């Protein structure tokens, strides 16, 4: 028991002495993880869109060749960056580039280098997640979009990606959380984030468990907040389970702009209702449905 008491005391001690360092570390971690995830998502989506440009045997050879090449390049990008440890990539990019190029290439800004590395890694993972997300969308959606003349990009941007994105939201959360933690390997190029501070502090005073506990709490807070925000975003994306029936006048107004022959024809019952043909004591206009979730139920 006293070990826990000591742990608590030591944590207070550490925090009061080093809180500036811890805060600086948290801020660096947050900044890097957030920006890298954002850029990574963008790269992943782009890869998803580019990867799915359709071509048929009837397309001209150059087009087919270019598209095949594009897919191969994306595949290589994904496999190489996903497939090798970020630490080593960092070493090669930050120290190896100037070394092997005899100083022709050199990063001057550690943060920029770290951001670049983490972002392209996240992008590689996201590309795969996006691929999964696209697979999960009913092909009928693509057909629906194509049938009204949308190009591949329009289809992707307006129809497929919004739905795929919703399905991979948990995955984006995963990636962000991985980044929050994995940015720690950027210590190798001298980027001091939250974990580096821990190593530094423990190096000075060997108070491993107290500092580790502070780290655990810090990371958990960072990720929990992100998790909560993401769940909220998911809820927003699902949209409200309710919808309002459009008001009669609103429609009359809209309809009034045009004068088509069938105006006022009793197409269905609700229609009939708002055109005032039947007046019942039951008003069903402007209803709100707050229940009936079709998704969360499972």
């Amino acid at each position: 028991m006293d070990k826990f008491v000591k742990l608590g005391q030591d944590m207070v001690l550490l925090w009061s002495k080093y809180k500036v360092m811890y805060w600086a570390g948290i801020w660096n971690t947050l900044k890097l993880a957030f920006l890298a995830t954002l850029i990574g998502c963008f790269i992943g989506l782009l890869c998803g869109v580019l990867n799915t440009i359709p071509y048929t045997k009837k397309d001209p050879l150059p087009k087919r060749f270019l598209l095949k090449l594009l897919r191969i390049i994306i595949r290589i990008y994904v496999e190489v960056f996903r497939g090798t440890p970020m630490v080593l990539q960092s070493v090669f990019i930050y120290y190896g580039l100037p070394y092997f190029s005899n100083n022709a290439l050199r990063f001057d800004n550690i943060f920029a280098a770290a951001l670049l590395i983490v972002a392209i890694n996240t992008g590689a993972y996201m590309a795969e997640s996006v691929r999964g997300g696209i697979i999960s969308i009913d092909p009928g959606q693509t057909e629906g979009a194509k049938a009204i003349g949308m190009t591949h990009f329009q289809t992707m941007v307006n129809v497929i990606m919004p739905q795929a994105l919703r399905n991979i939201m948990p995955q984006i959360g995963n990636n962000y959380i991985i980044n929050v933690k994995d940015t720690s390997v950027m210590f190798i190029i001298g980027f001091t984030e939250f974990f580096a501070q821990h190593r530094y502090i423990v190096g000075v005073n060997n108070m491993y468990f107290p500092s580790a506990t502070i780290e655990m709490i810090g990371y958990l807070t960072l990720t929990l907040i992100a998790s909560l925000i993401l769940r909220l975003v998911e809820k927003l994306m699902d949209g409200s389970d309710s919808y309002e029936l459009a008001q009669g006048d609103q429609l009359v107004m809209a309809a009034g702009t045009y004068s088509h022959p069938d105006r006022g024809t009793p197409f269905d019952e609700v229609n009939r209702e708002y055109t005032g043909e039947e007046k019942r004591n039951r008003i069903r206009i402007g209803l709100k449905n707050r229940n009936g979730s079709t998704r969360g139920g499972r």
Partner: protein
Amino acid sequence: GDSSSSSNNDSTPAETTPAAPTVEIPPVEDLTGTDTSAIPGLEDGVLTVGMECAYAPYNWTQMDDSNGAVPISNVPGAYANGYDVMIAQRICETYGWELEIVSSAWDSLCPAVQSGTMDANIAGQSMTADRMNEVDMAGPYYYATIVVLTTKDSQYANAASIADLAGGTCTSQSGTIWYDSCLPQIENTNLLAPADSAPAMIMQLQTGAVDYVCTDMPTALAAVAKDDNLVILNFSGTDGDFQFATEEERAENVNIGISVQKGNTQLADAIDTVLSALNEEQFNALMDQAISIQPEI
């Protein structure tokens, strides 16, 4: 009982090449008769020692048992050797203990002795007061001069004092006095973020990311042994050396010790008994020996 508190002030200028061991190393004392089964951790007669096995010349990993290397218990087929291993063997021989070497990350060495997973860490750790709040330390078992390492073609290669190093780009290992209080004494440095590990620090120097690094003599010697493009700048004993507020503070960071679980004074005492048989010159001789048996690649 720390026997020698001899200062470094009177030490001779830098030895850039390991001298032949002219110093006589006393034979191992035979204390196998003492009952050590009451020492916490040694009930089984096995001394479990933690080290990185990746911090030459204190400790490293090799592929065979040549030069008296000891198997690493958690890495089948690999053997540990180096100054730390030699010291550990000496301790075990003295008491007739069996030696078990466990390789682990630097970060985990402290919690490992705290939890009793390891009995002692012999890993080139310096004996700072802060660290000794968490663990007990035996020793010192080495006195490590602070030096600067740079490259032959560097503009700083001929520096004679830390004043000559002004304006350079530099770094050192994280959480060390080298990084925290030595390098800041140089004027106008571009002090980069601390390095992850000794090899990473050396790599930064080799790739030209920094002009020089600050470390201790053994590490520097080992690095020079592998890359003859590196040179050691040793200012100790001169006025141009790094300054410390007190002699205690210097000693704290120069004395290398062996950590044991807090309160395990029996083990610490037993180790100190062995170490007290050796003086600083003999430590240096052992270290030279270690550097000479470090594998080529």
